[in-house]
């Protein structure tokens, strides 16, 4: 059952065996977001915080590609500037979860016994509560900053990685090659690090992409609710919240950041699913 829960859903390609155009587009979107995150302010036509009270709520035009908001700030420039916070937080969350998840999942799956029970009880606990709600309450009550929100989300995301890697490790543990290494006399930790782990890295990488997408959406949800980011910051979720009331004047103040979040998350989701299918199946070379 968990295989189905954790199974990827790749958009089927028109030509089987080759990545679809969508997968290519996804990597393009990812590349674009990365470029914006690094060089966004330099590429932007205006400063993200520059107000122009004489030109508020302008419709999209050549001067302002996506118009301006109620303070006359250029929406397009703010979208470019927002890429940085849209990328760093989720990246830290996904990588942190991968690290913790790999460590705990492999240990639990390979060692078994009390270690496994303890780790999995923790995972069960984290699974039993809705993540976004916990994040909202904790970050909200603590008046947490962006990085505190990131920290909370690492703790909430790691159990997923742990569960997946534990399952995969258990599957590998029962395979003859692991048993043969045990009989050969190869020490347990060495089997785990040199033989089992490399077969699970692709799975872990693919999962990291998917986690990135989820974290992006969750962080944006928090900032939409005003949690974790200061008002007025060039953050996609925050911009959307502030644009909500302007939707009948310049809808792009709200629609543009919404699309930015959705496209970036979709890019990472599609890429992750594709990697999952491509790489994670590689270890199983039965013909």
């Amino acid at each position, binding site marked *: 059952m968990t295989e189905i829960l954790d199974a990827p859903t790749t958009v089927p390609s028109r030509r089987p065996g080759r990545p679809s155009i969508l997968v290519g587009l996804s990597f393009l979107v990812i590349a674009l977001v990365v470029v914006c995150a690094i060089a966004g302010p330099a590429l932007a036509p205006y400063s993200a915080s520059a107000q122009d009270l004489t030109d508020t709520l302008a419709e999209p035009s050549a001067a302002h590609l996506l118009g301006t908001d109620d303070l006359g700030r250029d929406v397009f420039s703010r979208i470019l500037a927002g890429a940085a916070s849209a990328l760093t937080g989720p990246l830290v969350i996904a990588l942190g979860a991968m690290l913790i998840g790999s460590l705990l999942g492999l240990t639990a799956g390979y060692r078994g016994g009390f270690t496994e029970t303890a780790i999995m009880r923790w995972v069960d606990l984290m699974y039993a509560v809705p993540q976004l709600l916990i994040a909202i309450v904790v970050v909200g009550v603590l008046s947490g900053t962006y990085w505190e929100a990131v920290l909370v989300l690492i703790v909430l995301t790691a159990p997923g990685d742990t569960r997946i890697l534990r399952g995969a490790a258990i599957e590998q543990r029962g395979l003859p090659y692991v048993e043969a290494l045990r009989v050969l006399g190869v020490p347990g930790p060495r089997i785990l690090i040199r033989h089992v782990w490399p077969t699970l890295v692709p799975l872990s990488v693919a999962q990291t992409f998917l986690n990135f997408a989820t974290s992006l959406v969750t962080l944006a949800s928090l900032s939409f609710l005003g949690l974790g980011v200061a008002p007025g910051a060039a953050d996609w979720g925050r911009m959307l919240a502030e644009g*909500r009331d302007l*939707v009948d004047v310049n809808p792009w103040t709200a629609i543009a950041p919404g699309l930015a979040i959705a496209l970036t998350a*979709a890019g990472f989701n599609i890429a992750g699913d594709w990697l999952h299918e491509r790489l994670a199946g590689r270890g199983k070379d039965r013909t």
Partner: protein
Amino acid sequence: MTLRALAAFLGRRLLGLVLLLLIISFLVFSLIYLAPGNLVDALLGTGEKSPQLVAAIEARYHLDQPFMVQYLLWLKDAVQLDFGTSIKLNESVTAVLADRMSVTLFLGVFGFLVAVVCGLALGIAAALRRGTSVDRGAVGLAVLGVSTPTFATGLILLWVFGILLGWFPVIGDGDPTFSDRLWHLTLPAIALGVTGTALMAKMTRAALIAGYEQDYVGFARSRGVGGLRILLVYGLRNSLVPIVTAAGMVITATLTGSVLIEQTFSLKGVGELLISSINNKDIPVVQATTILVAVLVVVVNLLVDLSYFAIDPRTRRA
């Protein structure tokens, strides 16, 4: 499976459930201590602090007692559905919650139904037409659905159907009559259901495709069993476990999503209450809301687990 074994399983699960709720309630209770600033200030909010009021608060929350005693006293009240008084609204928390419940419940059930019906339909269509444009479209929609935050979906729907087309109201939950509610909550429910639909479609498709690759489906085909029967008795029946699991996840997603949707559509539901209470540091309301949602989620998870028994004879007789 014997009745005794079922009872033992139920007992074990219920015990786990109680334990889980204890842990959650403890964490939720601890929240007020983790909140920045003076506890009395937090509990009093921004209002005026007369010595009498401070003393009353200390007595009400047993602040003179050790932490664990405070927790146990709070828990004792909580079990009796007494979460104290809302600092902001100066009303019993339970009453405030009850007042907000109807909108959220309506929205939640509506959104859940949208998700399950649309998700199942999309998932089945994609699996049956695997590799075709139907499949590509369904999977594409599903990916977009999980990638788009609920509030962004809500906003786009609001703009297109509320403002551009003017088909639906933009704000509020309407009169408490069913038809007006339905009209007001249709856009929010659809927006709320999108993530669930995507989840449900992905899972149904994956489960059905895996099911159709099973030997027993090939064997049924070879015996001339009809397509509809294969779908229902072979495909869906054997996919029920992941599908029910997905439905459980959709409930959770709907619960949390309603917080965002109520904010987007300015609905006065429990979610909106939670956010405004967080902003106002109205801790008793936050505690009660969190516990309420936690209990709901935990109970749903238990029901999902129990449904496996009904679905699969192997769990019953093994």
